[in-house]
């Protein structure tokens, strides 16, 4: 069964550094998402992406965050200058028309 893949599985970075989290959504899906889960908290929506542009973003998704679909297969989340509070599991998800979200296994981001 096709799946969403995320790399790396764990990323450690220093505060103030830029990180790029990578995702390969399911190939025939059209809608792409990033969610995050801070340890002990709920899964939160960050951003949705469709037709090569952001369709919606949450208040968490400030100017430090950006997303890109640089080619036909990858979908990336960039955090320009990481803060301690950005430490979380970041989940990429994709879906087709009228289908539920398919999540990747996540990237654990640790900001020190």
């Amino acid at each position: 069964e096709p799946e969403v893949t995320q790399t790396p599985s764990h990323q450690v970075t220093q505060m103030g550094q830029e990180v790029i989290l990578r995702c390969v959504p399911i190939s025939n899906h059209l809608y792409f998402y990033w969610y995050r889960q801070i340890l002990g908290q709920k899964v939160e929506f960050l951003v949705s992406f469709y037709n090569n542009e952001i369709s919606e973003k949450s208040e968490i998704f400030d100017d430090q965050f950006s997303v890109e679909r640089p080619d036909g297969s990858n979908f990336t989340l960039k955090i320009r200058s990481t803060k301690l509070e950005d430490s979380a599991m970041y989940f990429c998800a994709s879906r087709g028309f009228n289908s539920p979200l398919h999540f990747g296994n996540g990237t654990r981001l640790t900001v020190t």
Partner: protein
Amino acid sequence: DQQVKQNSPSLSVQEGRISILNCDYTNSMFDYFLWYKKYPAEGPTFLISISSIKDKNEDGRFTVFLNKSAKHLSLHIVPSQPGDSAVYFCAASASYNAGKSTFGDGTTLTVKP
């Protein structure tokens, strides 16, 4: 503002018995509800969904019930199996924006052999 609440952080049941996981929501705009299952070190996996035009949806051992007037839904697993042990998340969305889901805190289900 907790728009989706799962009031039981954990639930333990015996193998073969029924597991009932509950979820409440407050936002009247939600009309599409999902349950996800999550194992450690994995992402959430879609389990079952229900639209607000229905009050019940069944898929094998899993049934979701929706009570719109009470803004309450529940997931029934019967019979429960040890492999069902996982964290279960209730999620809600507006059907016009189905990918933007609001998640509950999750309930950890343990099924004892």
